[in-house]
C-alpha cells in the first residue's frame, strides 16, 4: 500500500526515502509531518515531510538512524511497503512576508528546514540559512539550500567544512552585525541547540520559532505523550504545534522527557541487532 519508490543514503547515517502517499501529498504544506509504522509490530514515529509531489502522489522523507525503527527503515528497499503512514499532521509553518529571516537546521533538522526556506523565499523574504552538523560527512541538501537561500552558512563541529563550531555561533555572529535587521528566526534541530538559539535571540527580542520533537504515539491529540510546556501552559505538540515561540518553551522539561525511554529503546535495538546477527 505505502510503497517505497526510492531510498538512498544521502549522508552519514542519513537516508532519503520517497514514499507513495497521494492523499498526503495533495494536502502537504511546509511544516507538516507524518507518522510512520515500518512493520506490523512497529512503533509509530513522526517524520517531517521534506517534499511532496502532488501530481505523482508521493512524499519525500529524510531521516537519521538513531534507534530500531529508523534502522529498520534504512534497511528497506525500493518496492517494499511501510505498514502504515498517516498525515499530514501538525500545523503548517507560518509563512508570510516577514522581511529578513534566518533559518537554522542542525543535524537532521536540515531536512525539515528545507521546505520552510523554500516557502519563505517564495513569499518574498530575504532568507539567510545556517546549517550545521558534526562533520562534513553528515551534511546534506547543501546544494538545494544554496540555490534557494540568499545566503547560506555552514558550520561543522570539527571544522571539516565551513565554520568550525556550532550553528548557534554563526547565528550569534550574524546577529552581532545585523541583529536589528533580522525580523524572524526559525530553528530546527537538537533540543539543546534550539534552546541556545532561543537564549541568543531573547535579549534582542527577535521572534524565534522552534519546531519541537517530543516523543509521540498517535500524533492526533489522543495520548498527550507529546505534551510540552509553553508559556506555562500544557500544549500537545502534535496538534498545537509542532512549531512554538521558542522564547516561551520549557526546553529543559522537553530534554528530560525525550530521554524517558532511553534504556528501553536501547534494549529494543540490541535485541534487533542480536536477531540479525544470528541469521
Amino acid at each position, binding site marked *: 500500500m505505502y510503497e517505497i519508490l526510492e531510498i538512498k543514503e544521502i549522508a552519514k547515517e542519513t537516508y532519503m526515502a520517497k514514499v507513495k502517499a497521494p492523499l498526503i501529498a495533495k494536502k502537504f504544506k511546509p511544516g507538516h509531518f507524518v507518522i510512520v509504522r515500518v512493520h506490523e509490530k512497529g512503533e509509530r514515529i513522526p517524520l517531517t515531510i521534506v517534499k511532496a509531489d502532488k501530481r505523482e502522489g508521493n512524499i519525500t522523507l529524510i531521516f537519521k538512524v538513531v534507534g530500531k525503527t529508523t534502522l529498520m527503515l534504512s534497511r528497506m528497499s525500493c518496492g517494499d511497503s511501510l505498514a502504515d503512514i498517516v498525515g499530514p499532521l501538525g500545523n503548517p509553518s507560518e509563512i508570510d512576508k516577514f522581511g529578513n529571516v534566518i533559518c537554522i537546521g542542525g543535524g537532521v533538522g536540515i531536512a525539515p528546514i528545507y521546505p520552510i526556506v523554500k516557502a519563505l523565499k517564495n513569499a518574498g523574504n530575504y532568507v539567510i540559512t545556517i546549517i550545521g552538523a558534526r562533520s562534513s560527512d553528515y551534511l546534506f541538501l547543501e546544494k538545494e539550500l544554496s540555490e534557494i537561500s540568499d545566503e547560506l552558512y555552514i558550520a561543522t563541529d570539527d571544522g571539516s567544512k565551513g565554520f568550525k563550531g556550532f550553528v548557534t555561533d554563526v547565528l550569534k555572529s550574524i546577529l552581532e552585525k545585523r541583529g536589528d535587521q533580522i525580523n524572524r528566526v526559525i530553528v530546527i534541530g537538537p533540543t539543546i541547540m534550539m534552546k541556545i538559539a532561543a537564549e541568543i535571540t531573547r535579549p534582542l527580542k527577535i521572534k524565534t520559532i522552534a519546531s519541537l520533537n517530543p516523543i509521540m504515539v498517535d500524533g492526533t491529540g489522543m495520548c498527550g505523550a507529546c505534551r510540552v510546556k509553553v508559556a506555562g501552559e*500544557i500544549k500537545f505538540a502534535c496538534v498545537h504545534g509542532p512549531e512554538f515561540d521558542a522564547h516561551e518553551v520549557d526546553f529543559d522539561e522537553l530534554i528530560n522527557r525525550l530521554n524517558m525511554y532511553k534504556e528501553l529503546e536501547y534494549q529494543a535495538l540490541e535485541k534487533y541487532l542480536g536477531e540479525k546477527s544470528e541469521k
Partner: protein
Amino acid sequence: MRKLPLDKRLRSFDEVALGYDLKEATLEAQRCLQCKDPPCVKACPLHVNIPKFIKLLREGKLKEAANVILEQNPFPSICGRVCPQEELCQSACALSKIGEPVAIGRLERFIGDYILENNITLPKKTVSGNKLKIAIVGSGPAGLSAAYFLSMHSCEVTVFEALHEFGGVLVYGIPNFRLPKEIVYKEIERLKASGVKFVKNVIVGKTVTVKEILEFYDAVFIGTGAGLPNILNIPGTNLCEVYSANEFLIRINLMRAYKFPNYDTPIKVGRKVIVIGGGNVAMDVARCARRLGADVTIVYRRTEKEMPARREEIENAKEEGVKFKFLASPVRIIGENGHVKGVEFIRMKLGEPDESGRRRPIPIPGSEFVMECDTVVFAIGQSPNPLIPNTTPEIKTNQWGCIIIDKNNMTTMPRVFAGGDIVSGAATVVEAVADGKKAAFSMMKLLGK
C-alpha cells in the same frame, strides 16, 4: 460466572470472565419471568427484545435467539461483555426487586459468541431506494453500528479511521482481559463480509476534509469519540513517568507494549504506580499495571460509594490486589532528576451534593501528605475530539466541545450526522451503538432516494 484463576490473571492479559456454557446459560434463562410489558427492554438503549431471545435460548433455539438480538443489536458479543447492565437492562429487571436480576448481559454474550462462531448474519433488506453512499468517520462502536444498519439496508458504506486498527476505544482503550481483541476483529470481519469498506490511516479534517467527502458521498456520519485526555496542570505534570490514561492504555492495548521488546513500543511501569481517578478507565489502567508487575494504588477524591466505575470491575481490581485510597486529591507530583518520586495529596471531606448528585469533595486545609511512587497515571476523563469541529467551521459544538445535533442526529452542516461520545461526551459503548443506529435510520429516512 466462572473466572480465570487469579494466578493466571496476574500473569496474562487473557479474558477474566469466562462466560456461560450452554447448560449454565439455559439454567439462567429459566429464571426469566417473561414479563408481559418487560421493563428490561425499555431500559436497554437498543431495545433488544430480551424476553423473546431468552425464551428461544431456553428452548435451545440458539439461531433464532441470535436473529432476535441481531435485529436490534449488531454487537451482542461486545455489549454482553462491557455494558453497565446493573444500571441498564438488569437494573430494571422485575426480579431485581426480590433478588438477583436475570444475568441478561451474560446471556447476550453467550448468544453473541454463538453468532461469531457460527457466522450468523441477517439477510440484507432492500427498502425501496435506500441505496445511499455513506462515509463513516471513526470506527468506534458508534461508527461500526451506523455501518452495520446502513449496510444491512443495502447502502454502500466506507469507514475512515485515523489509527492503524479499527474499533476505537474497543481496541485502544478497553484491555484484552475485559474484551478480547479477537472479538472486535471478528465483528469487523463480519462487516467487511457484508460489503462495508474499511480504510485506515485517514484523518478526516487533515488527510481529507468533510467537504471533500461530501462531493463523493450522499452523507457523512461522524463518530470520532471523546479521545482528548484531560491532564491536571499541577506542578510536576510533565515529569517523565506521568501518563494520561489514554497514553498508558494506547501503548499497552493498541501498540502491545506489554509484549515489549517483541513489539517495539515501550512503556515504563515501575514498581509502584498511583492511578488518579475512580471510573472504569482508572480500573483498566490499574489492572493493566498489576499485570505488568507493579504495586498499584487508585486514589479517588470521593469515597468508594461515589466511584463511577462498575461494581464488577472494582471487585475484579480488588481481587487482583489493586489498593484503594479515598478522599484525597493530588496537589503536586514530586520529582528527582526529572523522574517521579511521589505525589503530594490533600485530604478531602464530602460536602453537599453537586449538579451530578454526588457529594462534592472539599479539601481539608493543612492535611497534605505524600505517597511514594515511580509512575503516575491520570484517569480523570476525556473530552470530545476537537479535530473535525476545528477544521469544519460549519459543524457547531456546544461549550464542552460536543457536536450539536438535532432529533435526527444531524449536525448544523447539511448531510452530516453525528453520534457517540463526540455528541454526548464520554459515555458508554451501548449508547454509542444506539446513536449510530438512530443516525443510520435518520439518514435513510431523510435522504433515501
